[in-house]
């Protein structure tokens, strides 16, 4: 077993055990001691990593590369049984994508969903967390459980429920409207209202996860800091702006990145609630990809879509990491 480690930087420095004993005997500082004792676990380290790495290579690394390769081919249904027979077509799929009105619409719809949905989710989540953290102790768990309930339920079930809630004749909203004496529109049947309806539903479902993360972040802010601010005469809004928001920035970053990734990949909601309609007004990138790939078996073309989506996710994540991190350091 080699004793070389990247951190210790001692190449071939003899037996780990011997060195560890020597250092321990000499009463070395904890840092050196630790490094050295830890330096003899190459084999164990790799054995413990093996199951994860094997699964990662098979079901993530390989498919990521394979998707890229497929996106340069005309991979179709007959190639499923013989993947190597797919023809190389260069960048054709990508050039076709941006002339494909459907896909451009899907890009636009996904952007619409993200640009409205993510800030609303973060905003309502933060508001709920601040309210829950403002000195109510008895009921906090009760409310937290309630707000988080939609997060744990299957999106498919939630989408089926909301399809009914928004149903123009038997739905909850229609019934409420009827009781109050006005006619409600057919939300999911209207080109203008279908996407906003999906956004409201997505905010409703995901608000809880943002809230719980913000709540944890808020509770990590030491009370002394808040007390000091109050003693110095800070009002509620000053406290929020000058204490809460800056100290929540790491949480904000995490919530923003994770919510955005989730929203960019939106699939279940339009799949169950609108099937992309009416007139493709709720067709998202993932749904378009699914249809091209598994309804029409244009798998090369669908792979190009998957990659465009991936690049968008990467770009936005990087941008968010930049924007939100700069201000802390």
């Amino acid at each position, binding site marked *: 077993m080699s004793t070389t480690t*990247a951190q210790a930087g001692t190449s071939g420095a003899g037996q780990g055990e011997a060195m560890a004993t020597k250092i321990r005997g000499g009463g070395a500082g904890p840092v050196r001691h630790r490094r050295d004792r830890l330096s003899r676990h190459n084999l164990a380290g790799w054995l413990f*990593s093996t199951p994860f790495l094997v699964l990662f290579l098979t079901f993530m690394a390989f498919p*990521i590369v394979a998707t890229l390769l497929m996106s340069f081919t005309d991979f179709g249904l007959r190639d499923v049984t013989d993947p190597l027979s797919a023809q190389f077509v260069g960048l054709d799929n990508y050039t076709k994508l941006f002339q494909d009105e459907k896909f451009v619409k899907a890009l636009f719809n996904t952007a619409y969903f993200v640009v409205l949905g993510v800030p609303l989710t973060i905003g309502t989540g933060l508001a709920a967390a601040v*309210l829950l953290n403002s000195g109510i102790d008895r009921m906090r768990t009760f409310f937290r459980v309630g707000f988080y309930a939609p997060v744990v339920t299957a999106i498919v079930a939630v989408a089926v429920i909301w399809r*009914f809630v928004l149903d123009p004749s038997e739905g909850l909203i229609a019934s409420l409207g009827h*009781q109050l004496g006005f006619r409600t529109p057919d939300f999911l049947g209207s080109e203008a209202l279908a996407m906003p309806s999906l956004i409201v539903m997505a905010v409703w479902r995901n608000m809880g996860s943002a809230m719980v993360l913000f709540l944890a*972040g808020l509770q990590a802010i030491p009370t002394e800091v808040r007390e000091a601010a109050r003693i*110095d005469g800070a009002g509620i809004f*000053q406290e929020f702006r000058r204490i809460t928001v800056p100290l929540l920035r790491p949480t904000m970053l995490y919530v923003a990145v994770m919510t955005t990734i989730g929203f960019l990949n939106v699939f279940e909601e339009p799949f169950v609630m609108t099937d992309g309609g009416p007139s493709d007004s709720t067709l998202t990138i993932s749904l378009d990809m699914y249809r091209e790939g*598994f309804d029409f078996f244009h798998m090369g073309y669908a792979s190009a879509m998957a990659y465009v989506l991936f690049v968008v996710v990467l770009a936005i994540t990087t941008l968010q990491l930049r924007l939100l991190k700069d201000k802390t350091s």
Partner: protein
Amino acid sequence: MSTTETRPPLAPAATTPRRAPAARARRTLVYVLLSVGLVVTVAPFLWMALSSFKTQRELGASPPVWVPTEWTLDNFRELLDRMDVGQAFFNSLLVAVFVTVCNLLFCSMLGYALAKLNFVGRRPVFGIVLGALMVPGNLMLLPMFVMMSAMGLIDSYAALILPFAAGAFGVFLMRQFIQAIPDELLEAARMDGAREWYIFWRIVLPLVKPALATLAIFVFLGSWNNFLWPLVATNDPGKYTLPVALATFANDPTQAAGSNGVLMAGAFLVVLPVLLVFVLLQRFFAQGIATAGLK
């Protein structure tokens, strides 16, 4: 990323001192706002649950009926007739149990290695874990389908389980918890001649039981609610998981026509077990999220 730094400038002094009545009014306002939010959050679930027990007449009644005057199980009966709920339930459960057990084992193994074993390549491996956390599942969908077809695994439980057998989130979570175990404890065992596997199995795992519970819940729920891959990887209704069965049923124009009650009965059966588990085990959720979110 420290959350305890006390750097931001405090607001300048002066302005008004706090008063008791104002504080009370504020509390009331907080409760009112939270209650409104809660009603909005819970209403769709209540509407779903109540509607699943309504008769067809009351479902379409005008003016609308909130609480059924006539409770009926017809919707559930009809659902069970048309959709193999039992089989889908069994499939979901089997897949979720296997996925959970695999994650508990594999994630804590790598979590232990990353937290407590210094091996060449530890940093790159941790980098892979962090990277994997960000990769959207949709990216792997197409080649995974081809791969599973090539191996003849479409409509098999293996296809539903293996791709989710070791999630990056679990590794991350377990690493966080295992890091908190004092090195001295492990070192003492090593000096007594214990092997790494023994240390992992007999010392580390028992000490991180709460973390394992948290991870188990998250992974189980993730698997239970998973949709896109099971949709792609199954053609045989006998292998559908609950969400796939429900979505297929809901989107089948010949079946669902005019049967909102039946659909709500289906949603009710999918949602109920999960909500029960969540309410009973909710403290583990809070723990896990706090750890995972604030590395």
